[in-house]
C-alpha cells in the first residue's frame, strides 16, 4: 500500500517533467525542425500547392494552438498518422518497437550480467594481473568507435571475407506456408532466425557496453570493499565468496540497479540507429531518425512522449527497487 501511494505520488510529481520534456521537444521541432512541405511536394511545386500543404500540415496555425493539440494527443495517446507514409503512428510503433526491443534485450542482459561478473572478479583481484587485463580490455572496448565495431563484426562474422556464419542483414520474415508445419517447427523457425539475425548485433553491442559497465560496476564494488563492515566480516572469518556476493554485491546494488533501470526505457523504445542501419533491422531507431530528419512530427511526438513516460516509470521503479534491496530505505526520504 505504501509502495502504491509512493508510486502514485511520484507519478503526479512527474507530470510537470513530462510537460517540460514535451514542450521543449515540440518547440525544437516546430522552430528548428525540417519543413516537410518541400519533401512531400517533390520537384516542381507551384506556390498554390505550397500554400495548400502548409495549411494541411498545420504550419500556418499559431504555436500554442498546435501545442494544445499535441497535449490532447498525449492524453488520448492518439498521435495520428505519419505525414510521410499516412500510416497510423501507433501501428508504426507497434511494429518497430518490439523489434528494437528484441534486438536490444540480449545485449542488455548480457552486458549487465557479464559486467557484474567481471567487475566482481576484477574487484576481488584488484591490483593483480587479471584485474589489469580486464580493465585494459574494458578501456579498449570503450575506446573503439561503435560504428567501427559494427562494421568489423559484420565483416568477421557475416561475410565471405570472414567466418560467414551469420546473415549480413535482415530480420525474421514470416515462415513459409507449409500447411502441415507443426507448432514446434514454427517455433524453431522463429528461434533459429531470431538468433541468426540478433547474434552479431548483440556481440557488437556487448563488446562496447561491457567496457563501460565493467568499469562502473568495479568502481562501485571497490568502494564497498573498502568499508569497515567488510574488514570486520573478514576478521570474523566469513568466506570471501560470501562477503563478495552476500554483502558487497548486495550493498553495491543500489547504484548498479540505478544504472541498469535507467537504461531500460532506451532498451524498450529508443532503438539503436547504427545497428538497425547496418544490419537492415526495421526497428524504431531508424524510424525515429527518419522522422526527425524528414520532419515527420507525429512520429517524433509519439516517441518523445513514450520515452519520457517510460523514463518516469523507470525512476519510480528505481525507488521501489531501492526499498527492496535495502529495507532501511524510507519512501519519505
Amino acid at each position, binding site marked *: 500500500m505504501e509502495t502504491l501511494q509512493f508510486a502514485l505520488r511520484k507519478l503526479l510529481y512527474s507530470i510537470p517533467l513530462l510537460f517540460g520534456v514535451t514542450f521543449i521537444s515540440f518547440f525544437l521541432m516546430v522552430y528548428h525542425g525540417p519543413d516537410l512541405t518541400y519533401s512531400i511536394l*517533390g520537384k516542381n511545386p507551384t506556390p498554390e*500547392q505550397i500554400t495548400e500543404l502548409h495549411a494541411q500540415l498545420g504550419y500556418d496555425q499559431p504555436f500554442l494552438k498546435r501545442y494544445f493539440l499535441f497535449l490532447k494527443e498525449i492524453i488520448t495517446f492518439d498521435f495520428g498518422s505519419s505525414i510521410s507514409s*499516412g500510416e497510423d503512428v501507433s501501428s508504426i510503433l507497434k511494429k518497430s518497437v518490439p523489434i528494437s526491443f528484441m534486438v536490444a534485450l540480449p545485449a542488455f542482459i548480457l552486458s549487465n550480467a557479464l559486467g557484474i561478473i567481471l567487475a566482481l572478479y576484477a574487484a576481488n583481484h584488484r591490483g593483480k594481473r587479471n584485474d589489469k587485463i580486464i580493465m585494459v580490455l574494458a578501456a579498449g572496448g570503450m575506446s573503439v568507435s561503435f560504428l567501427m565495431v559494427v562494421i568489423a563484426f559484420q565483416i568477421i562474422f557475416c561475410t565471405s571475407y570472414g567466418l560467414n556464419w551469420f546473415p549480413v542483414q*535482415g530480420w525474421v520474415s514470416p515462415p513459409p506456408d507449409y500447411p502441415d508445419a507443426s507448432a514446434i517447427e514454427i517455433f524453431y523457425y522463429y528461434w533459429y532466425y531470431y538468433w541468426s539475425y540478433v547474434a552479431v548485433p548483440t556481440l557488437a553491442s556487448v563488446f562496447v557496453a561491457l567496457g563501460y559497465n565493467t568499469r562502473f560496476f568495479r568502481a562501485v564494488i571497490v568502494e564497498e570493499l573498502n568499508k569497515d563492515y567488510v574488514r570486520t566480516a573478514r576478521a570474523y572469518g566469513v568466506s570471501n565468496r560470501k562477503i563478495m556476493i552476500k554483502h558487497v554485491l548486495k550493498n553495491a546494488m543500489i547504484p548498479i540497479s540505478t544504472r541498469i533501470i535507467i537504461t531500460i526505457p532506451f532498451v524498450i523504445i529508443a532503438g539503436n540507429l547504427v545497428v538497425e542501419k547496418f544490419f*537492415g533491422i526495421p526497428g524504431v531507431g531508424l524510424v525515429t531518425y527518419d522522422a526527425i530528419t524528414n520532419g515527420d512530427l507525429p512520429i517524433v511526438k509519439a516517441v518523445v512522449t513514450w520515452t519520457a513516460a517510460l523514463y518516469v516509470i523507470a525512476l519510480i521503479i528505481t525507488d521501489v527497487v531501492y526499498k527492496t534491496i535495502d529495507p532501511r530505505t524510507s519512501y519519505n526520504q
Partner: protein
Amino acid sequence: MFFRTISLVACLASVALLTCCKRPFSDRTQNLSVFRFSENGAPVTMDPVQSATQYANLMTTSIYDQLYEYKYLARPYQLKPRLAVALPKVSEDGLTYTIQIKKAILYADDECFPGGQGREVVAGDFVYSMQRLFDPNARSQGEWLWQGKIKGLDEWKKAGADYSKPIEGLQALDDHTIQIILNKPFPQLTYTFAMGFSSVTPREAVKYYGKEFGLNPVGSGPYKLKSFSTKKAVLVRNENYREEIFDLEEEGYDPETQSWAGLERLHGKKLPIMDTTEVYFMKESMTRWNSLNKGTEIHFGGIPTELTHMVAEELNPLVLKPDYAKKFTAMNLPELGIVYLYLNMSDPKIGHHSDPEQNRRNLLLRKAISAAYDWPQRNRRYYNGIATLFPGTIPPGLDGYDNAFTADMTEPDFEKAKAYLKEGGWNADNLPVLDFNGVASVQNTQMFEQFRGWMEKIGYPREKIPYVPFATFGDFNKKVKQRDCTLIGMAWGLDYPDAENVLQLFYGPNSSPGSNSSNFNNPKYNKLFEESIVMQPGSERTEIYRKLNQIIIDDVPAVCGLSRNSPFIWHKNVVFLPSRNPHGSLFKYALVFDDSDDQ
C-alpha cells in the same frame, strides 16, 4: 571454481547452439523462385501520385499497370503498349488522343473489392487516377507534368476537385476507350503515360485504405505487395496477371551488344518469370556489398565506389578481376540524367542585373566559374572516371545533342577563366561572396572543397566561397525554392527520353518554386522553348533544341554537365539486364536459375 563453472555453462550453451544448427524446414521442398534485388534507398509510400523518387517508382511500376512501358532491351528507348492495346490515335492537330485499353485485365485480389476478388480494369479507372493527380488532398508530386496540358483538368481542381464532375479533356468514352483532349499539342504525352505517376488505380482501394493507401497498393501489374518495411519489400506474383510471354525480338534484343547477358533463356517464358521478388532497401553501401558478396543473400547490387579498384580490373569497359568474374556478371549502367551546378540567376551578385554593365560583368564571372570547373577531375574522383562528360544540358543520345560536342570541351581552362575575370574587372577585393549549398554529407563537403580549390586557382579568395550545408534534403530544397541559395549542386533524372525534359529546367515561367532552380529567364530562350514544345520530333525541332542548348552554354545559368555511369553486378545464375529511368520496374523479366534448369 567460479570461472570453471562459468566456462562449463558457456561450453554447454555453445554445444547446444551448434547441435541445433539445422536450418528450419530444410527437409521440405524449398521455393527457390525468388529474385533478391537491392536499392540504395527506400520508398516512403507506394501511392502512385507520390512516386517521385526512383524507389517509389520502382515499387509502383511493379504493382500497378501504366498505359505504356518501355521495351526491356531496345536502346534507344522505345515505348510499347502495356495496358493500352496500341500507341494512341492522335488527331491531325495533335490535340485529341484516343487510347484503347485491353479487355479482361484484372486487379489483384484484395479485400477492398466485394468478395475480395479483383475486378476488371476499366477506362474510368485511368480517368480517376489522373484526377487524383490534381486532387489537393492526395498531395500529388506529379501534377506538374500535366499542368495546363489537359483541357478542363486544372479548372476541375480549382472548382473543388469533385470526382463526380466530368472533365472535358479527360473522358472514358466506354469501359475500354480513353479520350484525352489537350489545350495545345504535347508530343511527350505518351511518354508521361509510362511513368509511375500515371499508374491506374482502383478507387475502391483508395476509399477502403484511406490514409494508409500508400502502404496497401492494389494494382493490376505483375506483382502484388505481400509485405513492406523500410528495409524490405516482398512482392509476389499477381495470380490475376494476364498471359504475357516474353519475346526477345519484340523487346528489342540486339545480339551484337547484348548477347553477353544470357537473355536467350528468357525467350518464351511467362511473365513475371519469378514467383517472388524481394527488394532490400540498403542505404549503407558496404552492407549492400557484403550481402551481395555473401552469395546467399541479395542477387543484384552496385559496386561501392571505394571498392571498384579492388573488384574491377578495368572500369571502362567494366572487366572484373578473376575471383569476382567467376561469381558475377557486371555492367556499367548509364543514367539518363545530368549532374550540374546551378548558378542562381535571381541573385544580382552573379545573375541577371538591371544594369547592363553589371549584367555583362556577371556573365563574365559565370563564364570564369564554368571555365575553371574541372569536370574530368570530378569524374575521376567521384564517379570512377566512367561518367559521360558533355557541354550543355542535353545528354548524349537524345534528340538535340550535337555530335560535334566532345568530352574535351569540359576540360578546365584556368587561364581562360582568369581572362574572363580580368575582362569583367573582377579581382580578389570586389569578387562577391558566393555561398555553396548542399545537403550535409562527407561527399558533398569533399566536392565543395574540390570546387573551392578550382576557384582558388583563378584567384577567388577561399573565404568568399563559404559552404552552407543543410541537415536534410527538405531544408535544402526549401531554400532553393525560396531562391536563397547562390551555387546549387543538383542532379536531374529524366522522366522520359526527350530533351524537352531537361530544357524545361531553364524555362523562365518554371522558375522557383518550379523546376528552374537557376531562375534563368531569357526571353529568347523562352520563346524558342515555347515553339519547340508543340513540335513533333524532326529536324526543325532538333535545330531549336540545339539553339536552346547553345544559349545555356553561352549564358551559363548552370555549369554542365555529367551523366553518371555506375557499375552493377549480379550473380552468375541470374539473367537480368538492369536499367534505371525512364524504365520503371524490370522485375518481371528477372530470372534466377540453377544448373539443373539446363538439363
